[in-house]
């Protein structure tokens, strides 16, 4: 069975799961002057990809592989010390769950939605959705790894009026790193929950709380 089209549906930025309202930490980095141009955007994306991107991709791959989503949700909490980011992950998880159940209805998604009515962490929901859609751990990891960098790149186009061609070029240059992270995530997922990476980024955690406390902002996170 070919699943390439299902992967495109799930990975499409227009899949109605609410991700467009979030900058993946890019807005506070722009506000602080840490993202100024395509080069600092590329650095930001690479750092995010190798830290929280790898961690989230591995959680998604593990859910796609069939590991217990509730145990993965708990593992995601332990990997997310910022309450603002835990809230965002659950909100996005809830939104993705609605879209996923409408698109690929089935008992596995229903069970997780019932166990976590306020939303499970988004990568766990994404991984389980991939599984239900007939996709594998690598596919789920690729989706999440790509989201990790495409969200900030798209947001910076608006925040800095960056040329969209330049932002897309940043993403294209990250392609080999994205492939490696997705492979690494899927390999860890196959070894079980204790082998999942927990790579973290201090500045993303600090800036997320500062951003959540700000009264005026363009993106929710």
């Amino acid at each position, binding site marked *: 069975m070919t699943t390439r089209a299902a992967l495109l549906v799930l990975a499409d930025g227009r899949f109605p799961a609410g991700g467009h309202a979030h900058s993946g*930490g890019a807005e506070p*980095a722009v506000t*602080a002057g*840490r*993202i100024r141009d395509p080069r*600092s955007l590329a*650095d*930001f*994306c*690479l*750092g*995010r*990809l*190798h*830290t929280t991107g790898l961690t989230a991709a591995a959680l998604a791959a593990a859910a796609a592989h069939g590991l217990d989503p509730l145990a993965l949700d*708990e*593992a995601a*909490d*332990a*990997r*997310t*010390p*910022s*309450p*603002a980011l*835990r809230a965002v992950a659950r909100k996005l998880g809830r939104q993705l769950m609605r879209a996923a159940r409408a698109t690929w209805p089935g008992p596995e998604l229903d069970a997780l939605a019932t166990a976590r009515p306020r939303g499970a962490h988004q990568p766990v929901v994404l991984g389980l959705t991939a599984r239900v859609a007939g996709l594998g751990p690598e596919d789920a990891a690729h989706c999440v790894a790509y989201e990790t960098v495409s969200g900030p790149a798209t947001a910076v186009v608006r925040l800095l009026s960056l040329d969209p061609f330049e932002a897309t070029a940043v993403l294209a240059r990250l392609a080999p*790193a994205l492939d490696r992270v997705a492979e690494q995530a899927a390999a860890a997922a196959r070894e079980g929950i204790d082998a999942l*990476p*927990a*790579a*973290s*980024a*201090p*500045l*993303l*955690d*600090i800036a997320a*709380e*500062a951003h*959540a*406390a700000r009264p005026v902002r363009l993106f929710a996170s």
Partner: protein
Amino acid sequence: MSVSATARITAVADGRGSTLLPVLESDGPLAVRRTRSPEAGCARVTVVGAMSAPLGGDRLSIEARAEAGARLSVDSAAATVALPGAGPEAGAASYTIRLSVGEGAVLRWLPDQLVSAYGSELDMVTQVELAAGARLVLREEQILGRHGEQTGSLSTRLTVRLAGRPLLDQQVAYGPTAPGGWDGAAVLGGHRAIGQLLVVHPLFEDAPAAPRLLGTDAVLTPLAGPAVLVTALAADARLLRGILDEALSGLPNGA
């Protein structure tokens, strides 16, 4: 010549309000000494680096247990400096800390900074097992490079489980062998001193702390369990310690 050494500390409550240390074993470069505790009922141990360590290729570990009801405080006499090994084949050093805290026990784990010297390569792993009702104060500080020097390669992982469930799992990697982007706008933003302060206390079960910014580059956050984590970045070790000390003064210090 690389070294393999494990130091061990076990603290037990004597049932009359004091804490005894039936196990206090030094090994190789890791010397552990009982020192005078400023607090009654609490045993204090100071880790004295008897020689320069860890060097590339060394395998060091410390195992500390505070059994049910015991009160143990561990600090160090000086910063730990990761240095390159002798010759290019020395490889990475490893430093493993295993801590366990029993029911109603208190462990304060407050070592000095870990300094990653230029050319060094160290993998540090800290694993903490907490029983329900255990209390913990744990500080970790990483300084990237000695004064005016580029950093070595440093990776650390801190895993904390409470009553068998994951409470905190954090992994970082900095320096020449780390994956790209570690010094950029998402991870360190050019900072050279990174600190974490974890406080686990049953008080937070019913009254979780509110998240709070501590200046521009530090934050106090409630975890998904009865604990708070302070994450701080600073330009140097002195500024970092200032932030963590101030944060600790407003938190339950194991009491």
